[in-house]
């Protein structure tokens, strides 16, 4: 396939955004391993975190075929400014309500992103999207079932979920930070664009939350937390990267 340089750069940017989201959120969620609220949930949440890191690896592998460095190099040697994930996934895990609501907002968005990419005209990504879909379907089922469960729990569980939704909505909107080079991807049928994705996402999660007697804050009064897609992060990503790459950094040439 002949891709113009401009489109290739935009495509790589999209792949980096997706892969970095999965790697960073996968790592964040893995911080719950051994600390989950109950054994079964600990295993389920850890297993999904592994899925995410696996998806990141496969996306970095496509990037590698497009001329970028090896997946390990890309994952373990960049500093925070070189990442393209959204600010939301970099946030510390907080208490379980924060991590669950992030899981709900993010995975619903990711399933729609992957679903739209099944039809991308860039074949390697279309193949991966088909592969990821089943995993993400479970991630969304897991998130939605928990949200429903806690919304129907007691007054405290419901209030905590609603408060966390209110406090996280701006961060969640940051998932859909548009990129300057996106139009060339939209024109060629590679990607439907962040704006279209955000509309689809709102159309899915709004009625779901309402069915649980929960609600989203007014979008017009909420400022999306942008910046991450361009490498501008708050204080959280770099310390996490330092911790994540601690062992790798001891001897980057070690064979595993």
């Amino acid at each position, binding site marked *: 396939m002949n891709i113009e340089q401009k489109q290739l750069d935009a495509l790589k940017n999209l792949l980096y955004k997706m892969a970095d989201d999965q790697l960073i959120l996968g790592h964040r969620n893995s911080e719950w391993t051994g600390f989950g609220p109950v054994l*079964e949930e600990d295993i389920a949440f850890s*297993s999904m975190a592994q899925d995410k890191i696996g998806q990141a690896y496969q996306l970095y592998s496509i990037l590698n075929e497009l001329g970028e460095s090896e997946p390990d190099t890309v994952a373990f040697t960049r500093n925070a400014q070189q990442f393209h994930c959204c600010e939301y996934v970099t946030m510390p895990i907080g208490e379980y309500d924060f991590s669950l609501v992030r899981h709900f907002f993010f995975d619903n968005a990711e399933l729609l992103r992957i679903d739209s990419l099944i039809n991308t005209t860039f074949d390697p990504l279309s193949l991966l999207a088909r592969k990821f879909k089943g995993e993400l379907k479970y991630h969304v*089922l897991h998130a939605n079932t928990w949200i429903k469960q806690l919304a129907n729990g007691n007054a405290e569980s419901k209030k905590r979920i609603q408060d966390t939704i209110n406090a996280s909505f701006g961060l969640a909107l940051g998932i859909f930070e548009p990129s300057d080079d996106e139009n060339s991807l939209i024109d060629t049928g590679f990607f439907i664009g962040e704006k279209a994705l955000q509309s689809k996402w709102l159309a899915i999660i709004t009625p779901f939350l309402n069915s649980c007697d929960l609600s989203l804050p007014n979008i017009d009064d909420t400022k999306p937390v942008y910046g991450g897609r361009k490498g501008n992060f708050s204080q959280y990503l770099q310390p996490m990267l330092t911790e994540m790459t601690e062992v790798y950094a001891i001897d980057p040439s070690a064979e595993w």
Partner: protein
Amino acid sequence: MIIKSLDPRVDRAQIDEKKEFEGLNDLDHWQTFEVFHQEKRGEQHQHVGIVHAPNAEMALLFGKEQYARRGATVNLWVVKTSDVFCSEYEDSDMFDTTPEKFHRDPGSYKVMDKINKFKERISKEK
């Protein structure tokens, strides 16, 4: 004293070394569900284990990752443990003579002679 660990997550959790285990309360444990998985459509579901869950929906969610994250699965069942009606171990003498009943084993039907004869005939006819 706060527990010091090589694991930064343990340090962040600020766990008090002296804090004693306070025991379990009634609602600390959910009920259990029996999990059955099916490897291939059409095959029988096999019992694979148990999960704690507040309801069937959550049990299915947990059952998937506990018992279907390795190996092939096309379908899962969960059944509330308390809904399983079972025999008593003190009545297990009901089953005592079963291993002696060779006449119920398919292996005890003498059919191989007939099959071999049939095969022979077919190959001759060819």
